[in-house]
């Protein structure tokens, strides 16, 4: 692997917009999402089903299918906009520079080819190697991901393996070309907790060994806390909070993040009642005006009818909420000071 070093982050997603044009209307699945992933960094993307975290990843890979379309923004991989390269180049980038693993390994592996065939296909598509070499490489990869007796396993079909083994095969295939970025979409959600532990440990070892960056998409805050350097919280197609992992877990700012963290039962903390986030995720065809979270938000205020911008509330800590960095309601009016208050005031004055 050739490691380019530059000042730019490995991946920059800028104002990405992916919309689905359905019969019932336009679903803005990803609506102005920006975040970046540095070399060798793990960014955890967290949110509930339908928040757009997977669609963002698929957009990066340019795997959006009808009726969806990327309608705006850019995805820069080492400064090159993936949304503007041609299909042949994109095929080259997929697998070589960016690989992806999915939640359900059974549906992402081809049932009629052996595991070894599938990995060696990936290898030979991206490197000029002979069949024998590609097969050897496949066996090597299976060994790397901790599959016992890899030579025998390579000759087996996906259905002959357990869920954890299949996910290892997926990882082996994804890593067979030494990608700089691994996109892992709920990689352990379908697995049991002891197997999940095995896979997480495996991913940690591999990212150290290959100095690989990971976009880790999951709804499991435990997995995020365990793996991520930075965290992106998404809600209804937007990034609502973003910072390093310690800050997001210790000092969350956005009421959605705060609510999520408070609502999960934790080991060793027996509480009488769990906190809840009231209500449900809004219908994507009928989003509220202004802040998308306001109907469920305990802090909802009149200013929330205006969409809050994603603002830096502390160094490197972004939040899409009108609350002041200290979590107070913003003062709006001539006496108000500060960037957020000014933004709030101008938002209120701006014509709708």
């Amino acid at each position, binding site marked *: 692997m050739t490691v380019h070093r530059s000042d730019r982050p490995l991946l920059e997603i800028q104002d990405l917009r992916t919309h689905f044009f359905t019969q019932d209307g336009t679903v803005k699945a990803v609506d102005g999402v920006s975040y970046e992933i540095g070399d060798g960094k793990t960014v955890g993307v967290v949110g509930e089903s339908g928040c757009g975290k997977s669609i963002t990843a698929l957009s990066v890979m340019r795997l959006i299918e009808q009726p969806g379309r990327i309608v705006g923004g850019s995805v820069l991989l080492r400064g090159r906009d993936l949304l503007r390269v041609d299909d042949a180049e994109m095929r080259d980038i997929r697998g070589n520079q960016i690989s992806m693993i999915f939640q359900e390994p059974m549906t992402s592996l081809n049932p009629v080819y052996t595991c070894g065939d599938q990995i060696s296909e990936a290898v030979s598509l991206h490197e000029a190697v002979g069949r024998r070499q590609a097969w050897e490489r496949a066996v090597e990869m299976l060994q790397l991901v901790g599959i016992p007796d890899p030579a025998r396993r390579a000759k087996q079909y996906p259905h002959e393996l*357990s869920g954890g083994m299949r996910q290892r095969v997926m990882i082996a295939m994804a890593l067979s070309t030494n990608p700089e970025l691994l996109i892992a979409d709920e990689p352990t959600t379908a697995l049991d907790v002891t197997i*999940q532990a095995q896979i997480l440990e495996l991913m940690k070892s591999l990212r150290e060994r290959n100095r690989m960056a990971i976009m880790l998409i999951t709804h499991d805050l435990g997995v995020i806390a365990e793996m991520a350097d930075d965290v992106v919280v998404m809600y209804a197609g937007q990034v609502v909070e973003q910072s390093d992992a310690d800050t997001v877990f210790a000092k969350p700012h956005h009421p959605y993040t705060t609510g999520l963290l408070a609502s999960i039962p934790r080991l060793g903390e027996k509480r009488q009642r769990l906190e809840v986030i009231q209500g449900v995720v809004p219908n994507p065809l009928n989003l509220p005006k202004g802040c998308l979270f306001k109907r469920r938000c305990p802090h909802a205020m009149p200013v929330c009818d205006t969409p809050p911008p994603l603002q830096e509330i502390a160094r490197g800590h972004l939040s899409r909420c009108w609350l002041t960095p200290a979590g107070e309601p913003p003062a709006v009016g001539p006496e108000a000071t500060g960037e957020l208050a000014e933004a709030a005031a101008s938002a209120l004055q701006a014509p709708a």
Partner: protein
Amino acid sequence: MSGQTWADGAAIEPIEASASLVRANGGAGRVLLRAEHVVKHFPIRGGLLGVTTIGAVRAVDDVSFEVRRGETLGLVGESGCGKTTLGKVILRLIPATSGQVYVDDRPLFDLNATQLKEARRDLQVVFQDPYASLNPRMTVGEIVGEGPLVHGLTDKAKREELVRELLAKVGLNQSHIHRYPHEFSGGQRQRIGIARALALNPEFIVCDEPVSALDVSIQSQVLNLLDDLQQELGLTYLFIAHNLAVVEHISDRVGVMYLGKLVELADVDPLYAAPKHPYTVALLSAVPEPDPRRRKKRLVLKGDVPSPAAPPEGCRFNTRCWLREQLGNPERCETEEPVFRDVGAGHLVACHFSEEVTPQAIASAAERQLPVIGA
């Protein structure tokens, strides 16, 4: 799995005449349900015509436990450990291979069809998948009201009122009674499933992974609802789940299953604070904590769960056991099946060497782990 309702039961009393509160206060702590040596084997067919039995999946293999009135007994384990099968067998949803379940000292497996109908008024179930367990062609009113109607407890005229009451109880909008399941979100569907379970005014509800298909922010709503209903109606739950934190939150006592066996059963606090079975230790250690400052050195089990069609001899956990390795692989683990024994204060555990499960032993096992990647 679709549309599993108790369509065959008998009449129940109207909700307002419920004796639940009396039950809750009067009978708390007494045994409601007792499972004795319950076994469920699924035959594996083979041979030329596929009619010869060539083996058996030992899904539940000699499990005994009690559920006390008013408590929540949590049941955890990995997929394939038999927890769901056990839940179904003790309700006689599927026939047991052997063993017996006593509900209020009545042997459930020996009841005839009429007696079973009657007994089932008290035994209900909430399924995991709210998308698969509600009949898409029936309205909410029909789904929730079907049980009482078939049992002759209510007629069509009064049904609507009963259903509205139940919908209100589980936090659904009463005016949605004529809607179909697809018009609801996952969390709301699970509430419909719960309303259906409550319709016959049961004492005991098996909750089989009731929140695992739901989003995080919805999970806590449903868990709180189950809590509230238990307090209000004096319900007893068998709560089956793989999420250890959820089970800790909701349970009074917890049982841990591995390959068809109960390996540990204790009050929730001692079980989570000081587990005595090496498998429970590993399960708890595997849970990622939602706090990056508490990233821990974990004890990662090697390999997969063996096939329940050919479980290991002796202790079923011996092929993956870190303690056995630490003790120099004593032969006993492979030859002798451990007895499910009381190691003090009702803490039951099936391990020959549970005394060796100490914080020091756990820490040193976590330290000695081999690297997870090869070559």
